[in-house]
């Protein structure tokens, strides 16, 4: 599948001397990784080559408090406000579509692409953000790029790329009840390692993968980068087409039929060779929680922090986390719970969190922050009353954005506190200086919020 998409986008194939010139079908952009690229265009007197293939939004440094988004209260962080204004100016100057701060379609860049139907099978998709791998759930070749490359795509609609290798992740059997896509991808990263996918495009396949919904597939592909892979892909199938059919910017009528015919040729041919492969048994998994300072440091919720003597990096991670080897994961106290992000900020994630929370209260002393992935997700969640469940439980319900995933907008975890988070990175300081992050599914996050310590959600759902 990867080879087919790659070859269809080669403007100039690679040689020993030069990388391939690869055409990009969709360039998503946001306020953080674009200003220096626009400055480069300006200094060279260049234009944006394909405004019709470029879509911008505001997500990383934007506030989640309603009064700062809609109420006329200034954005509390001055530099963030300037960055937002800069993208607004650049969008005007370069004639680029911007789903701005108060736009009803605004949201996290990786949530809105699929939601609008601009994310489609067989496309090449880039964004100045490492979680661009999310879009691979549709059978697109999607990867994160740096700001210099953002400038390249603005000016030429192309990137220079060496062809990566391929890595098959075969997930056999089905996930047990109460075990989610988030638990599966954490288990995969635990097995492959945080650099196991470096230089590779992952293809997730097997019975457990085809059984997943599109939103679950996005959760899987989203964290490919956490295994070191820039891209992860899942073959398009009826689930993909059913998701896309009614999306506002998906092809319509005859164009839709032609697109489905084209997309159905994308899946990997039987017997195609991969550079590497690994097999995972979905049936053997349980809810997973990280205990360390990278997503590969992960254990089953019923397990313990592993023992690993004589490894100073491991010891440093545990010291940062304030955890001891051998300590049960389920004993870890919780101060903050965050549900949201491009990993788990979609409607189905909020439904799962609500299912656990319904009729319960967030434990005393725990701050639970629930941030929808987009304004459309927010609207849909409110239409089915999910926000009522959250607010009644004592959680904080906000406007959309990246928020506490990386704390750029001021939504941070206080120093030394434990945060059970549905986001994608538990790096030191990621959610705030000294914050201690435990990555988990929305179900585990909600259960942990109720009990005030890390909790297996199956105890509350049975």
């Amino acid at each position, binding site marked *: 599948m990867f080879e087919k998409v790659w070859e269809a986008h080669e403007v100039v194939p690679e040689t020993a001397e030069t990388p391939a010139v690869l055409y990009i079908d969709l360039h998503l952009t946001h306020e953080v990784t674009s200003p220096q690229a626009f400055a480069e265009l300006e200094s060279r007197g260049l234009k944006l080559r394909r405004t019709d*293939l470029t879509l911008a939004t505001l997500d990383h440094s934007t506030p989640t408090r309603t009064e700062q988004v809609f109420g006329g209260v200034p954005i509390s962080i001055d*530099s963030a406000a300037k960055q937002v204004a800069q993208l607004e100016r650049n969008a005007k100057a370069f004639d680029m579509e911007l789903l701005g701060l108060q736009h009803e379609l605004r949201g996290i860049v990786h949530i809105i692409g699929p939601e609008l139907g601009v994310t489609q099978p067989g496309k090449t998709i880039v964004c100045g953000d490492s979680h661009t791998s999310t879009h691979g759930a549709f059978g697109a070749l999607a990867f994160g790029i740096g700001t210099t490359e953002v400038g390249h795509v603005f000016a030429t609609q192309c990137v*220079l790329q060496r062809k990566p290798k391929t890595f098959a992740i075969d997930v056999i059997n089905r996930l047990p009840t109460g075990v989610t896509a988030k638990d599966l991808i954490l288990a995969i990263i635990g097995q492959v390692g945080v*650099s196991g996918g470096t230089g590779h495009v992952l293809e997730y396949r097997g019975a457990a993968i085809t059984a997943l919904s599109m939103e679950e597939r996005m959760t899987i592909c989203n964290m490919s980068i956490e295994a*070191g892979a820039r891209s992860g892909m899942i073959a398009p199938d009826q689930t993909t087409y059913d998701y896309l059919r009614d999306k506002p910017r998906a092809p319509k009528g005859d164009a839709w039929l032609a697109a489905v015919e084209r997309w159905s040729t994308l899946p990997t041919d039987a017997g195609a060779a991969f550079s590497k492969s690994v097999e995972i048994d979905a049936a053997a998994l349980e809810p997973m929680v990280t205990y360390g300072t990278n997503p590969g440091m992960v254990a089953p919720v019923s397990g313990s922090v592993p023992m690993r003597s004589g490894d100073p990096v491991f010891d440093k991670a545990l010291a940062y986390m304030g955890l001891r080897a051998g300590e049960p994961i389920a004993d870890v106290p919780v101060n903050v719970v965050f549900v949201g992000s491009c990993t788990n900020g979609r409607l189905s994630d909020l439904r799962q969190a609500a299912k656990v929370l319904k009729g319960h209260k967030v434990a005393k002393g725990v701050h639970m922050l629930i941030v929808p992935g987009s304004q459309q997700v927010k609207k849909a969640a409110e239409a089915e009353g999910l926000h009522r469940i959250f607010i009644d439980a004592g959680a904080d319900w906000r406007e959309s954005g990246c928020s506490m995933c990386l704390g750029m907008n001021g939504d941070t975890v206080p120093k030394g506190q434990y945060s059970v988070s549905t986001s994608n990175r538990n790096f030191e*300081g990621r959610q705030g200086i000294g914050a201690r992050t435990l990555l988990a599914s929305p179900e585990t996050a909600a259960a942990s919020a109720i009990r005030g310590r890390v909790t297996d959600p199956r105890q509350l759902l049975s």
Partner: protein
Amino acid sequence: MQPIKTISSCTVVMPATNIDTDQIIPGRFLTTTTKQGLGEQLFADWRYDSSGKPIPDFILNTAAAKGCRVLVAGRNFGCGSSREHAPWALLDYGFQAVISTEIADIFRNNSLKNGLLPIVIDAEPHSWLLANPGAKVTIDLESNTLCLPNGKHVTFNIEAFARYCLLNGVDELGFLLQQDAAITAYEARTLRT
């Protein structure tokens, strides 16, 4: 961009594995709209205490690190986010090369585009470098070799085109802009017009 041929410098050693881009430049500093001045915030959460004072035993705050332009780091350096602010911060601080046994893909790409050399070497010379902080090394991009003070020459590999651009001070956007006819032909062929 200035051509780069050789770098001779003492090394700073940070042996930790998986040093991610959130450590290199924490997210709260990404609201900048320029590339300059990020060196001050390089490794901020390891370098300064909560009142902003330098932490004396952090390597970059020691006298030995002063003036060293080559960083030797543990395996899988630069993993995590695509923020180009990470190589910008390293360069702004004064580093010109990073040596490890493994360097994350996006960080490596971003580094090459800014003239920060990502040098991947085998475990054996890497262990030697980790054990000998401050060693005077020479990186010769023309011959793809890293010369250690013990007389050993270690070869490394840098993607051919990126290396050509670095050696000649050529910028990749200029090369891509020259492909305009091929890009236009591709757009016509695939009806992306």
